[in-house]
């Protein structure tokens, strides 16, 4: 009886997993099929010939997909770099130092947690248009450099650190800056990694803001590039289109499969942000 329920549950999980993974399986399968096979409407997951590899060589070498990936990498790296650069010192100050404006900064952080980019998009767009900043890497990066969410997270984290540790360091003659760099930063690494995963995943996948500010195809981020590729270049070459979706999806999925626990940790942090 017990064995029966256990195996039933397992079978159920397997069926559900197949349903959840089916789109990925078909994405891979169709990315390897030739156009004629796709139009024959076959359901098989295995391609009938090796002709489909041409989809990948075409997507990677004749179309600007790699450029889009590189844009994505540059933008995500720049955003994360500034977010950490701005948020870590701020979070430390808010968590460990006494100063008159602390409540003000905390209020600002709370507001930042509540307001998504879609709310501030119009005025930022208008401002960028005035400053002729639209359609540039700067336009993609700047609105995200001050991450309230990062300050919020790192503040929680710094608060759990005992003051004695910092006082001992001060007695040893370390200044605030070296306390931050040499003592707190190494301890912050796990929290920073989780935040980094959250930040990179959300900005790599974001469509809204790039769609708003980018006009030139050569500045496309991966999601925007995919949409552009589909409407401007792919036509009815579905094999190529599927190969392109594979290429865009692979970096994050591969990273996820390599560090599953960290990814789940990092992404579920987003639940706090809403």
């Amino acid at each position: 009886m017990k064995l029966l329920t256990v195996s039933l549950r397992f079978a159920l999980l397997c069926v559900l997993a197949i349903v959840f993974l089916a789109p990925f399986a078909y994405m891979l399968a169709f990315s390897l099929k030739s156009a004629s096979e796709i139009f024959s409407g076959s359901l098989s997951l295995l391609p009938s010939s090796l002709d489909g590899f041409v989809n990948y060589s075409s997507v990677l070498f004749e179309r600007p997909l790699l450029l889009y990936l590189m844009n994505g990498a540059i933008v995500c790296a720049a955003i994360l770099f500034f977010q950490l650069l701005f948020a870590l010192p701020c979070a430390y100050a808010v968590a460990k130092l006494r100063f008159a404006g602390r409540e003000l900064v905390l209020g600002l952080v709370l507001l930042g947690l509540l307001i998504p980019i879609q709310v501030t998009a119009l005025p930022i767009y208008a401002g960028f248009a005035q400053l002729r900043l639209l359609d540039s890497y700067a336009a993609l990066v700047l609105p995200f450099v001050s991450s309230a969410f990062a300050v919020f997270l790192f503040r929680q984290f710094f608060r759990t650190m005992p003051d004695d540790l910092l006082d001992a360091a001060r007695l040893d003659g370390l200044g605030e800056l070296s306390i931050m760099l040499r003592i707190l930063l190494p301890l912050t690494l796990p929290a920073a990694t989780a935040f980094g995963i959250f930040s990179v995943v959300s900005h790599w996948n974001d469509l809204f803001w790039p769609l708003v500010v980018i006009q030139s195809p050569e500045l496309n981020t991966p999601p925007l590039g995919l949409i552009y590729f589909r409407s401007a270049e792919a036509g009815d070459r579905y094999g190529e289109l599927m190969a392109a979706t594979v290429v865009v999806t692979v970096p994050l999925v591969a990273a996820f499969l390599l560090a599953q626990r960290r990814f789940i940790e990092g992404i579920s942090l987003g639940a706090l942000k809403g």
Partner: protein
Amino acid sequence: MTRSALATASRQLGSAQTAARTEARIAWILVLPFLAGAVVFLILPCIGVIAMALSDWQLGDSNIRFAGLQNFIELWRDDIFRQSAANTVFYAALVTPASVILGLWLALLIESSSIGRAFFRSAFFLPVVSTTVAMAIVWEFLLHPSLGPVNALLSAAGLPRQSFLSSASTVLPTLAMIGVWENAGYNMVLFMAGLKAIPRDLHDAAAVDGAHRPWERFWTVTFPLLGPTLVFVVIISFLRSFRVFETVAAITQGGPQRASEVVLFTIYREGFVYFRVGYASALTVAFTALLLTLTIVKFRFLDRRVHYS
């Protein structure tokens, strides 16, 4: 003697004051970069969007007039907005319960299974990590009326082919199905964290007290203790599904016949395609008011959840 003690005391007080002042100065230096960014990209735009909502501004227009609540009145009367709001609520009303129940079910199944836990968790979480736009394009192809495998299966089973995404009656439920596929794994992970916080002894105690079937133990122990997590996950799911944009922008563009028009897409089109800034800002303000209310409720529950554990 007393005088020198006084002098020492005042010197100490003085140095304590200087130390406090130095600390405050350092704090301000550390806070400044973030603060500057937040003022430019958060505070000013927030004020801006409210001001724009009260104006008749169209981008590129050099004279801006104060329009009072005119944009909001127009919004209230606008059929497109009504449809868009109704669609968004309908979409969220489909995705929220389905992805919450599926997420909870997946979490319970995985918790009670002894083999392959890590594999199943990753399998169900995979859609969360994948680029939404890419998967939207994949789904569009899977559901393609003539070439897609789903319709091939349907016709192999002797059923009529469906044009899931290009017919006004099926487009929203289809997008909602994709939304559930994308969000269930996220909810599952949140539920797994909630389940982990429930002590095992309670299940054993319930078993001793006569709750022998797992189903009974679920309703007497797990479900009540999971309550705060459940509310939290419901709110998160609603917030997430209410902000649906990617699948609509990538696949349907709000069509056919505005059947999949959703609020964020309407804001995007009015503001950044038609440049009706005043109107789009009013739309944004209305949308934000609702989001804020929900988010504040969420934080209330988050507090309670933290106290539970």
